[in-house]
């Protein structure tokens, strides 16, 4: 762990914490390190405690760490005044006070003494002593005000950080030069330099320094949202309709910025029902289209989602989970929408659902979602969460070095339509009950194509699309649609690389950890630690949720004696899914749940696992639910 820096910058929202941390992360990447960030912020525009953690290491990092080892506590310019009876307490000191619990022993603290009074923090000095923290109070606000404007105190903080870590400021200066110009740039550079100098003159008591590393290939710093947007663009998606909602807004915004530039269309509409309906309408008219939302916004898409299933209109929806139910905690991650996304909308589900485990998978699986949606003519959903959405990490640039695949899947050209089956009246048999190809897919036509006219309807329908309640037709159509799910499962099973990620640092592990989506990296890190401690444990990160990878999960579960299912919700939805799909293994499946608004830390998974082995207590932030019948 000595080769790792976990730098946390804390302040009020609206104080520029985000962009400052992003620059610092990028600078570290440019210095040859692997970087991973974790954002924590309140549902409030100005003020309210927020932080970003930047973890940097010479080795690849796939998770936040357990706590941090460097805290830069800025002031909160929008803190509410303390007042008796007010439940929000002294907000001004939160950037320091709220971040001490997670600070590792021997960690470094820099705080803005211009804004934060440590006297107000109970037992501050005792805690510093106890934990061997190294504290550097600096009047950052003053430094910034002296040379420029108060808001530039973040820059002073970064300068101080550089000095304390003996980290060269070159990359940071370059990045500043990219983002600003003129007087603003100059003043910032001055402040940066001055802070560095001032701190450099101090006597250091700590050992922590910025690690030094180098990359094998060129790296890019991307978030899950970037990756989803890029996956969509590379698959030829040129239409998005949406309505803002945290955290889905990130993908929507990225697409809205890119699409007009490359000849596509983005529509911000009146609500999410309309958003989904527009995506369906655009897809029907022959464009690769997407929409998406979070929680309540996705709930509003339930009915259109079913329309896409019944009319076999390809569409990709992304769902960015946040803590629920209802409005919940809008800026906090959770994995509580799993069942909702799998089953919402009346009738049997007929959709694809992927939950990528990291940015590279988000790119890859968004592409696969489009591919399957357009090949099999159904909605495909990319389910992720506030964590994956915003976390930046270094990814090999080569991951994106792929050709675009803009084709429309199982769509016919006019020439092919002319050859295809028609009703005597000339109507195209868009929904053949027994298409020749396997997989239940009946190729489609697009309005405006000659000879392709048909009726799309949410009612049960004949091959030409006309409404029908004939029992034989019903059975044939429903079975054909459901058959597509089996075909997709087969297709995915047959691929070289699956959507499940097995992590097995030691051979012959007889304990397993299962998780889905964004917790994959954290679990893997925990597995590594457990393996290092001599535990025979391996993990499976599941991304394909519907159709469910029965064979893979069965094989994994058969190979272990007991397994821990790690997920961020209160009712063990993913464990429930495994049990539902496989109908057994319940007696070997323990759950480790977390739902306090923060994602798992690797240490919590380690402790949760030890509960099975040693009967220890799990971390107090998590809940352990033993297997039934144990």
């Amino acid at each position, binding site marked *: 762990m000595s080769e790792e820096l976990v730098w946390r910058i804390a302040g009020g929202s609206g104080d520029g914490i985000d962009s400052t941390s992003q620059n610092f992360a*990028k600078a570290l990447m440019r210095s040859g390190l692997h970087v991973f960030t974790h954002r924590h912020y309140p549902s409030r525009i100005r003020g309210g405690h927020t932080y970003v953690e930047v973890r940097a290491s010479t080795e690849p990092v796939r998770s936040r760490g357990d706590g941090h080892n460097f805290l830069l506590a800025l002031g909160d310019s929008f803190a509410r005044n303390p007042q008796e009876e007010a439940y929000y307490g002294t907000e001004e000191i939160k950037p320091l006070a709220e971040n001490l619990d997670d600070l590792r022993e021997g960690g470094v603290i820099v705080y803005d003494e211009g804004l934060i009074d440590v006297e107000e923090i109970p037992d501050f000095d005792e805690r510093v002593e106890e934990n061997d923290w190294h504290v550097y109070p600096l009047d950052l606000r003053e430094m910034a005000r002296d040379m420029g404007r108060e808001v530039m105190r973040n820059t002073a903080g970064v300068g101080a950080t550089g000095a304390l870590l003996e980290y060269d400021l070159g990359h940071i200066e370059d990045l500043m030069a990219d983002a600003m110009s003129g007087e603003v740039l100059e003043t910032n550079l001055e402040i940066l330099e001055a802070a560095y100098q001032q701190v450099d003159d101090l006597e250091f008591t700590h050992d922590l320094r910025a690690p030094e590393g180098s990359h094998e290939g*060129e*790296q*890019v*710093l991307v978030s899950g949202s970037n990756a989803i*947007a*890029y996956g969509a*663009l*590379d698959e*030829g998606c*040129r*239409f998005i*309709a949406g309505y803002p909602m945290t955290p889905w807004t990130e993908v929507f915004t990225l697409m809205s910025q*890119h699409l007009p530039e490359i*000849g*596509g*269309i983005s529509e911000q*509409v*009146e609500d999410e*029902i*309309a958003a989904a*309906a*527009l*995506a*369906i*309408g*655009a*897809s*029907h*008219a*022959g*464009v*690769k*289209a997407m929409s998406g939302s979070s929680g309540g916004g996705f709930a509003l898409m339930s*009915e*259109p989602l079913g*329309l896409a299933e019944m009319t076999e209109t390809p569409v990709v929806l992304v769902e960015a989970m946040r803590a629920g139910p209802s409005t919940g905690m809008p800026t906090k991650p959770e994995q509580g929408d799993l069942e909702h996304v799998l089953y919402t909308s009346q009738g049997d589900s007929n959709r694809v659902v992927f939950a990528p485990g990291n940015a590279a998978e988000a790119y890859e699986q968004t592409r696969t979602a489009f591919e399957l949606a357009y090949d099999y003519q159904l909605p495909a959903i990319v389910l992720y969460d506030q964590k994956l959405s915003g976390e930046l990490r270094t990814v090999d*640039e080569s991951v*994106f070095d*792929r050709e675009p695949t*803009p084709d429309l899947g199982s769509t016919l*050209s006019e020439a092919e339509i002319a050859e295809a089956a028609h*009703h005597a*009246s000339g*109507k195209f048999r868009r929904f053949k009950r027994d298409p020749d190809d396997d997989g239940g897919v009946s190729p489609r036509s*697009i*309005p*405006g*194509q*000659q*000879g*392709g*006219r*048909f*009726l*799309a*309807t*949410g*009612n049960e329908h004949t091959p030409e699309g*006309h409404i029908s309640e004939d029992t034989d037709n019903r059975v044939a159509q429903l079975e054909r649609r459901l058959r597509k799910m089996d075909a997709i499962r087969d297709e995915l099973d047959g691929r070289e690389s699956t959507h499940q990620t097995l992590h097995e640092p030691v051979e012959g592990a007889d304990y397993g950890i299962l998780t889905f989506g964004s917790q994959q990296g954290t679990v893997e890190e925990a597995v590594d630690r457990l393996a290092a401690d001599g535990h025979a444990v391996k993990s499976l990160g599941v991304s394909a949720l519907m159709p469910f990878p029965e064979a893979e999960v069965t094989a994994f579960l058969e190979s272990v004696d007991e397994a821990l299912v790690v997920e961020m919700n209160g009712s063990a939805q993913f464990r429930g899914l495994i049990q539902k799909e496989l109908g057994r293994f319940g007696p070997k499946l323990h759950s480790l749940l977390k739902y306090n608004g923060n994602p798992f830390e690797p240490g919590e998974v380690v402790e949760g696992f030890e509960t099975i082995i040693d009967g220890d207590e799990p971390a107090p932030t998590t809940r352990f639910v033993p297997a039934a019948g144990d």
Partner: protein
Amino acid sequence: MSGFNAIGSDREVEREEFTPGIEPQATWCPGCGDFGVLKALKGAMAELGRDPEEVLLVTGIGCSGKLNSYFESYGFHTIHGRSLPVARAAKLANPDLEVVAAGGDGDGYGIGGNHFMHTARENHDMTYIVFNNEIFGLTKGQTSPTSPKGHESKTQPHGSAKSPIRPLSLALTSGASYVARTAAVNPNQAQEILVEAIEHDGFAHIDFLTQCPTWNKDAKQYVPYIDVQQNDDYDFDIADRGEAAEMMQRTERSLYEGEVLTGRFYHETDRPSYGEEKREVGEMPEEPLAEQYHDDDYEWERSYDLLDTHK
């Protein structure tokens, strides 16, 4: 070469080409006003020489929503209240399509009211026909947003306490650039108005009075009707928002007093359609989006070339 050769063929089209071989006879009740819409729409499309395969008819759910079961073209029978967002996206995706949306008064002014308001305000270039029978037909006769106050139904056994909405005024206030009312009992006017609406470059709203003899027996059959353009008593300028507004109010009120006023109420010719506005600001390509997928020469950008900002 276009991927959509049904579009813009500009040939002579017979109205019977719009009669589907599969369901030539509609299942609407005898005497239903919906037959009138079907007839007028077939007539209008033939008059305009539209090829059935360049037309996309998007409907909601209701008796009215079955329109595209009996009209031969590309069709999308969507879900209750959502015809407009589906239709307007199709138009954005392929502006060369002739897009018509249609549905009932419940569908369009009830559950779909918000889409009506926002689609009108955006002035999408399409035609929207609302079958206004002042009732929920398909679900067997409940009060609708246009049912008169006092209207008795199974769900309002003592008579509705609600004043009806004002469909024409709402369209105008929201931003529709062509607003008309016609009636199933007046097939010639209906066809003329449909032709104008389809030709209009912007959002054209037609409140189409369609009697429902099954559930709205006691309601008027919309006769006698008066064409406000044909009658000297009604003198107003359909290009003037204020005059149009006043005339609409009067028309809406008088319907419930037994006077059926029909005709054109508003026509704004210089307002750009949404597609034009969007192209103007550079948020929509010149070539129809749908054509890109059939254009072998089209250069598809890839994300790899956008990675600079991440380095």
